[in-house]
């Protein structure tokens, strides 16, 4: 049952046998079977032999209760993941799969305690998992063979309404709504605190792939998403979000990344290609916490987002097909050191949000990006409702580009100096409108296998608990990506 090089199978068998024999020991309050729980307690054999010699049931029960605190140096070691946070040994693993103690993920979630690892064997899991328990880690043993399949009948693969939960090394596909969904408790001012999705593949879900809402302190890393009629990655309604999207891939979606009213998200060192639109943070009045008031988009490779063979929710989203980075009605975004090429309509766009309440972009900085190949409109675009007041402190400097609207964009809206007023206006409707027919997300081809996390069978769990923090983004260390 146990899966660690430090495990002691004999000891564990003895431990479980003893526990089973002493059925008068109090069961855990959650009622889970003790025999289904594996604890890393190599020194327990000696302890139990001594206790049996004394014959004290009370002492035995106390020993069982203290198993998790045995303090053994062999008890799982200590792990640190990118972004900080440390998991201290020992830890408990609940194994799920055919022939394991738990046959459904939900049963294991219901039995688990905070800090424990739920380890999924390869298989197709046809269930909708709800997590309302803090600090769990749900991990697949094989990213490409542990699959949560919604069969286009279930809404979400894993829905998390608890703090500190991490989902790792698995695939979530074919859900009507979302693959993995982290959410706070709306309107009660209870914001989900701490979440992470690492080495997760999401594809062909009807809304988002990995979705964080009303949540703070989060991280998406090493994930892959394709075939979504919205976006594989979405972070919305949070201020501060304190979230990082790093080293992810998005291709063959409507949007590569979308985030509404999400102040404080960094999107770095990732690839967005073959979508309809690459990256788009926005401000909207349809969700709370407007406007979207600050974030970082840096070091990303954003190219060829002109793919008509992609899904889209409906015709109302016939927008901005063929654009790379579109910041719509955002403030205080730093869009720096990205490679944004061959998005045929436009590469980097600062534009007003025109639907419902109008949000003009303010104080965004577009600097040191490498762009080319936007033949239909321009590489760099600043589109405001009215230019008579100047550039609204939006600025462009140090970019490599071939075309821009206004043409002298780095002169009329240069960083570090007052902008000109009354410069060339842009027809935002012409820029934003139009898109080719789209495909049904259910018909999209599955993606190729993706690289899994290191040592999934043995790595100790690192929940996104209060000792953990997302990756710290250091802009000065980020470089413009090279050509793929």
């Amino acid at each position, binding site marked *: 049952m146990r899966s660690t090089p430090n495990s002691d199978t004999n000891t564990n068998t003895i431990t479980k046998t003893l526990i089973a024999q002493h059925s008068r020991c109090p069961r855990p309050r959650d009622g889970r079977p003790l025999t289904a729980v594996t604890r890393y307690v190599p020194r327990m054999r000696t302890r139990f032999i001594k206790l049996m010699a004394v014959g004290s049931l009370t002492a035995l029960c106390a020993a069982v209760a203290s198993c998790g605190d045995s303090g053994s140096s062999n008890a799982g070691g200590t792990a640190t993941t990118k972004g900080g946070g440390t998991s201290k040994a020992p830890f408990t693993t609940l194994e799920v799969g055919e022939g394991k103690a738990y046959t459904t993920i939900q049963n294991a979630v219901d039995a688990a305690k905070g800090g424990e690892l739920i380890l999924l064997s390869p298989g197709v899991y046809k269930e909708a998992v*709800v997590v309302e328990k803090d600090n769990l880690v749900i991990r697949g043993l094989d990213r490409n063979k542990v699959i949560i399949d919604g069969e286009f009948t279930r*809404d979400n693969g894993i829905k998390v309404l608890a703090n500190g939960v991490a989902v790792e090394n698995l695939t979530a596909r074919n859900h*009507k709504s979302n693959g993995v969904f982290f*959410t706070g*408790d*709306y309107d009660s001012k209870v914001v989900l605190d701490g979440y992470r999705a690492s080495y997760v593949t999401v594809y062909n879900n009807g809304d988002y792939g990995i979705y964080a809402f*009303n949540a703070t302190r989060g991280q998406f890393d090493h994930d892959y998403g394709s075939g979504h009629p919205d976006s594989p990655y979405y972070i919305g309604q949070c201020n501060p979000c304190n979230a990082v999207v790093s080293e992810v891939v998005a291709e063959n979606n409507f949007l590569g990344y979308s985030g509404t009213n999400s102040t404080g998200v960094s999107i770095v060192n990732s690839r967005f290609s073959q979508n309809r639109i690459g990256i788009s943070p926005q401000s909207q009045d*349809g*969700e709370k916490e407007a406007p979207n008031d600050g974030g970082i988009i840096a070091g990303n490779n954003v190219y060829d987002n002109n793919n008509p063979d992609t899904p889209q929710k409906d015709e109302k989203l016939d927008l901005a097909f063929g654009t790379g980075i579109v910041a719509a009605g955002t403030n205080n975004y730093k869009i720096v050191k990205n490679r944004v090429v061959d998005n045929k309509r436009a590469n980097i766009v600062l534009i007003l949000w025109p639907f419902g309440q109008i949000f003009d972009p303010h104080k965004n900085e577009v600097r040191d990006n490498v762009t080319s190949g936007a033949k239909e409109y321009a590489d760099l675009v600043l589109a405001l409702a009215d230019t008579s007041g100047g550039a609204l402190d939006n600025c462009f400097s140090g970019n490599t580009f071939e075309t821009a609207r206004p043409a002298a964009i780095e002169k009329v809206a240069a960083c570090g100096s007052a902008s000109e007023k009354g410069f060339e206006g842009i027809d935002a409707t012409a820029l934003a409108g139009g898109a080719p027919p789209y495909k049904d997300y259910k018909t999209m081809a599955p993606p190729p296998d993706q690289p899994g996390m290191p040592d999934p069978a043995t790595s100790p769990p690192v929940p996104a608990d209060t000792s953990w923090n997302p990756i710290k983004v250091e802009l000065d260390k980020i470089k413009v990506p090279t050509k793929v």
Partner: protein
Amino acid sequence: MSHRRPFAAALAGAAALIAVGCGTDGIRVVAGDASEVPTPGSADPAGPFTGGLDLTEAVDQRNMLDVPVAVKDNLFEPRVVRVSAGTSVAFTDQGLNPHNVIPSTEGQFVGIPTGDLDPKMSKAVTFDKPGIYAYHCSIHGTANKGQRGLVIVD
């Protein structure tokens, strides 16, 4: 459309609502039997199920025949409403994503399934009997957390 309800009109409206009629979109869902619904102040020691929501945050709409509830991404607004028996509560998706309205106590009323409450769509539920009706969107919440709401029927 919401409007004030004179007493006579209320009686007539309640009678009409017993029959299958038209809600805001031409299809009306009639609430189920709520006879076993615990009422505020009932003798049930566990009290009525509220999904952890505060009854005192209720928006009093007891003078309205038709009560709108906005369904946004991802919340119901207002989250707690207080209405009179026979009131039609119209849920309208004003967000960008699909939602649903699922009774948190199974069978307490006929909910609105996924697919019937997509963006711009509207669907009404008529609450004929007094009680506390807890509901949630099963896509974006559970009975106890996330997108959920209450209808308190006097």
